[in-house]
């Protein structure tokens, strides 16, 4: 399951869907709006996506993860728009009969999402300035999955 949403992410629903009798292990990853980056203070983040392509890339990620690991559940939800401090911008759930697959899939999914999915965040700093984040030296998106 993949989803882009402008609302707070419903983590309970994601976990409830993952807690199935065939899953022995569920790993949830939440990316949270962090207040400090070094000594710079963030007030909130604002996320934008090329939505049609982001959905397509997220679906490819889910598919690739299901091919690589025996997943009972695989969900990727990204929030768009304003995400206040301490709230989740992204949630990933991987459920598998055994825990090593659930951990590996969840970590691979967030690592790859951050490289490949056309979503951008804008920092709103405490000094009132804003800045789109476009990491320098980022790898070219892997098109192999």
């Amino acid at each position: 399951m993949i989803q882009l949403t402008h609302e707070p992410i419903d983590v309970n629903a994601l976990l409830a869907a993952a807690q199935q009798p065939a899953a022995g292990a569920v790993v949830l990853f939440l990316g949270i709006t962090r207040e400090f980056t070094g000594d710079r203070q963030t007030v909130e983040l604002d996320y934008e996506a090329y939505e049609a392509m982001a959905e397509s890339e997220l679906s490819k990620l889910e598919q690739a993860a299901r091919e690589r690991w025996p997943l009972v559940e695989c969900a990727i939800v990204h929030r768009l728009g304003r995400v206040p401090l301490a709230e989740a911008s992204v949630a990933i759930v991987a459920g598998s009969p055994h825990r090593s697959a659930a951990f590996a899939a969840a970590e691979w999914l967030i690592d790859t999402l951050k490289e490949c999915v056309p979503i951008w965040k804008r920092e709103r700093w405490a000094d009132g300035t804003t800045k789109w984040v476009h990491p320098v030296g980022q790898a070219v998106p892997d098109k192999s999955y």
Partner: protein
Amino acid sequence: MRVRVKLFAAARDLAGADIVDVELSSGASFGDLRTKLISTHPHLSPVGVRSIFAADARYVSDEESISETAEIALIPPVSGG
């Protein structure tokens, strides 16, 4: 041919528009599009040189030829998550 390019994030802010049109000769590649886009919209340069194009929601390389009917977007380095 006229190519419409969707812009996002800092690229959109730098260009002051969500979409820009670029005139290219038929059979042009995405590399040609990048060169023309930056020459006609020089403000885009700092992000444009670090971006990748997408056609119909798939990443493409600068060597590929542009299909006139494809939806084309400039994808700056991503920062979701």
